């Protein structure tokens, strides 16, 4: 379980986080959605003890990250936004060092390495240097490394950024699998479809503040189920409706070309903040 109360952080005069509150229940995927610079990575860095907070509290499974950092860090695995694999080590050496950092016994490391390589489907890459892996394989290894010590909480900072759609879908499969194995997942992303597909609960973060928090369906339902997009004075406008019939009737009255589609999380974000996510 993750409990965050009134979390704040400033960089100089810029307020990166301004009193953020949320709770992530055990075994759920919590999507933390916002545009670049909204404060997503700052939140995850504070939650994992990489950056100091200015105010508020952070508890992971009941342990405070600044007062009991060692106990707290044993609770989670971290998949960072930027690949931080040890490029000069092989795939299995990356897992070995991670296991040693988490005080795993030698026999457990051997056993768990085999399990993880099977899990991320990289058994044949065991002896390969990490720097020679493809982007998708590096991401899979990052996830595998984060799971090496069987954490109950997994932080994932933009886990599929920069990956092609096919690999992204594959990573989503892994994330669902990890949740099914009982982990609590805190996921930051600016990919709408990623949050919609994966998250049980989503928070919209804008300018360091959570502006809405609900299930993806709940957030979308708040603005309607259907959207009509049309061009007005060369600007894309969107109108929301509760039923498809209402949307169709609206389109019939329009002279310009219109598109009728289902509402997505980005619509919910825009209607609440006036800003786009990506």
């Amino acid at each position, binding site marked *: 379980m993750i409990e965050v109360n009134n979390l704040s952080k400033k*960089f100089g005069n810029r307020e990166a986080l301004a009193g953020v509150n949320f709770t992530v229940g055990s075994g759920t995927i919590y999507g933390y959605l916002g545009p670049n610079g909204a404060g997503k990575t700052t939140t995850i860095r504070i939650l*994992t*003890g*990489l*950056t*100091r907070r200015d105010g508020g509290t952070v508890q992971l499974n009941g342990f405070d990250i600044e007062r009991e*950092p*060692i*106990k*707290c*860090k*044993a609770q*989670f695995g*971290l998949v*960072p936004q*930027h*690949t*931080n*694999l*040890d*490029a*000069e*080590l092989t795939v299995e*050496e990356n897992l*070995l*060092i*991670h296991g*040693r*950092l*988490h*005080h795993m016994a030698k026999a457990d490391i051997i056993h768990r390495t085999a399990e993880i390589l099977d899990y991320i489907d990289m058994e044949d890459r065991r002896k390969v240097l990490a720097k020679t892996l493809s982007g998708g394989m590096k991401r899979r290894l990052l996830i595998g490394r984060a799971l090496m010590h069987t954490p109950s909480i997994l932080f994932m900072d933009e886990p599929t950024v920069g990956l092609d759609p096919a690999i992204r879908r594959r990573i989503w499969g892994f994330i669902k699998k990890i949740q099914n194995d009982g982990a609590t997942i805190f996921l930051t992303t600016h990919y709408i479809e990623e949050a919609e597909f994966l998250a049980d609960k989503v928070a919209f973060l804008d300018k360091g503040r959570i502006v809405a928090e609900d299930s993806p369906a709940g957030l979308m339902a708040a603005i309607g189920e259907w959207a009509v997009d049309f061009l007005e004075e060369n600007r894309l406008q969107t109108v929301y409706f509760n039923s498809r019939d209402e949307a169709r009737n609206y389109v019939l009255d329009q002279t310009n070309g219109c598109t009728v589609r289902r509402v997505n999380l980005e619509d919910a974000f825009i209607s609440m903040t006036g800003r786009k996510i990506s």
Partner: protein
Amino acid sequence: MIRGWSAVYLREVIILKRRIAKLIPAWSVSPLLYLIAFAYAVGQQPNFDGHGHTYPQFLLPGLAAMASMTQAFAIAQEINIARFYWHIFDEFQAAPISNPAYVLGEVLAGMTRAFMAGCVILILGALFGVVLSYNLHFWIAFFLNSFAFASLAVGLAMHVKSHADQALLNNFIITPMAFLGGTFFPLSKLPIWGQRVLEILPLTHASKAIRAAAFKEPSHASDYILLAVVGCVCFLFAIISVNQAKS
């Protein structure tokens, strides 16, 4: 409190092992040049230091002392590559290990590099016919010096913002000390005020202690104590610096 240091150390050792075929020739170049250019081409007089030693015999312990400093300090470069290029520092910081454990792992890695480079110098010396006494005192002074400079390197690595900054540190700290710390010439040849100034440098005391041990001459306990104190202060500085590295 220091649980987990072995993981940090093991990582550095694996990388060291992987690069060893390139590192040994690299470690050999400078001492080889010093031995050829200074020891053989310049000075072969039989009583260079007034204690009956030739210049190659005088130089070799100085080169060992210098290697114990430069190679231990080189761990800063490895840490910077890990921080700025590979972002591996975050992996250590997110792991359940304390900052002293991280520092200890890196310092021991620096000392291991220094030990290996020192051995290369002693082997080169033997090839040039210079074999001295590499006794317990020799290695104690060697390791105390490498402990001090590896600790200083870890601390400073947390403050530099780029590789260019690291190069500046080498220019302003390591290079002057390498040439003025009693490596290439006896300090007794300098005026008194110069000797007093250079006695501030830890390498001066390391050179004195290592040379005295290599020549089986009586050594000063004060040299060992000073190196140990400097080492402990630098180790503490490194721990504080790692703490401050969190933004």
